[in-house]
């Protein structure tokens, strides 16, 4: 495969990124930051795109909202996708908007069959507007809401089967949710449909301040945890290599430090590819 492990792009790393020579390297950006008319930030992204595959990760489709996605936002995303010709377009299984306000986080909801219908309908609108399937990421959860009718793995599988979307599996989110809600992360990952997974995310987390029963926060401000690396190795051994992203959004280290983490993912992907080939 052409793209192996990639990095979340940080504007301060532009020169390092353009000079990197690493095989299989690609970049992902938060699409929302580039939904602008023009200027140097957009120009930097297009310069990056000249050299590497770039994927667009959105935070604003609010795909699990009871309302349809905002048409203005969809129009921005379509225009950006036309310019960038992204490897992948993705967003999260969550909702953000309520009563005119946008909550910049990924909010939970009861996974009912009615909610599944709504999510599939919202995805149809997005995928029709973009003219391509998108990937949907599993969320980090902090509470086991009452009223679920489907497990998260079943919800994601059904959503993908009915809408034609793919899955972006964030192994850190799975780890965080499993720790917070008390389920087995490995069993959860094992239950996901391999043929639907189009991308994998790896990120760091931090415990909140509670000394008695700490919750893990999906903070993207630390290196990927060892337990998450182990789950990742297990996942790609089962499903095969997939484009994998190291995400870091806070406490941004040097480009070299991020590339070291990226190199570890690249190595695991090469190993998984070798093992897959040996099983033919």
């Amino acid at each position: 495969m052409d793209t192996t492990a990639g990095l979340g792009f940080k504007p301060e790393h532009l020169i390092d990124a353009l000079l990197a020579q690493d095989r299989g390297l690609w970049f992902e950006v938060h699409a929302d930051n580039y939904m602008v008319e023009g200027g140097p930030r957009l120009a930097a992204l297009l310069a990056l795109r000249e050299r590497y595959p770039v994927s667009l990760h959105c935070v604003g489709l609010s795909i699990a909202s009871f309302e349809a996605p905002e048409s203005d936002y969809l129009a921005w995303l379509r225009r950006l996708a036309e310019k960038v010709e992204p490897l992948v377009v993705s967003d999260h299984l969550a909702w953000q908007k309520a009563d005119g306000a946008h909550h910049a986080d990924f909010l939970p909801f009861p996974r009912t069959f009615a909610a599944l219908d709504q999510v599939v309908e919202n995805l149809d609108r997005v995928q029709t507007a973009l003219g391509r399937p998108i990937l949907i990421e599993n969320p980090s959860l902090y509470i086991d809401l009452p009223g679920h009718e489907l497990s998260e793995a079943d919800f994601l599988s059904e959503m993908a089967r009915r809408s034609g979307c793919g899955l972006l599996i964030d192994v850190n989110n799975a780890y965080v949710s499993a720790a917070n809600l008390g389920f087995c992360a490995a069993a959860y990952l094992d239950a996901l449909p391999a043929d639907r997974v189009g991308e994998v995310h790896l990120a760091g987390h931090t415990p909140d301040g509670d000394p008695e029963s700490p919750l893990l926060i999906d903070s993207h401000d630390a290196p990927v945890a060892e337990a998450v690396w182990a789950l990742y190795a297990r996942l790609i051994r089962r499903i095969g290599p997939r484009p994998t992203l190291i995400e870091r959004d806070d406490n941004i280290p040097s480009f070299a430090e991020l590339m070291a983490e990226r190199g570890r993912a690249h190595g695991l992907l090469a190993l998984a590819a070798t093992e897959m080939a040996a099983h033919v």
Partner: protein
Amino acid sequence: MSDLARFQAAFAVALADDDGVISDLALARALSIHRNTSVKAAIDALAANFPVVRRLVGEASFSAAAFAFVRAQPPGEPRLCVYGADFPAFLAAYAPYAEAAYLADVAVLERLYTEALFAADAEPLDGAAALVGLDLETPLPLHPACRAHAFAAPAASLWSAHQDDAAEPALDRLVWGGEQVLITRPAGEVHVASISQGAFAFLAACRSGRPLGEAAVAAAGSGEDLASLFATLITAGAFADTSHPSELNI
């Protein structure tokens, strides 16, 4: 109303009400985490878009003001890079800054900076081209990134004195008085400069679509040398070259 709509409406109300009492401890904790994450993202966006206001008041004071603004006017759309259009007006009315009216002026300048940063691409009018074929009967179009504003405070000087590359005595040399500020984006980088009253009058006439000849008359009232005033504005990249539409511009 669907169950999903009812759930999301109730969740959003609980999220917005940080003084509310939630008897379910697990729910209260989850709400607190989501509230912290979304409010932090909005405050971080304001800090990114108003860095000089933040330097002027200090991090703690800025965070308090930003928190109050986020509570009053949470982001209305996902694009946080353009969040804060009403933050300058909020600061103008913010009681703790009542004695520091210049803060709202600096905030207006920083908002115009953000607008200039993300404005559409276009070729600026260059000096040589400007000498050929300028028509006094036709309006001269401004570059999409061009912004001009007249401030009661020395907003451009305050802004410049709080840049990383500012010379050490910049603040000592500051003369307190109104400033006309020009913001442009020549060669892909945003520039902030104070300009003369004549240059500001010229740009204001261009902005309102008046022909070049009338803009010159408006500027002439200041008694300034029109040729050097015009050269200054062209060098800053204030005008668009409409004969060469940029390929990047949609």
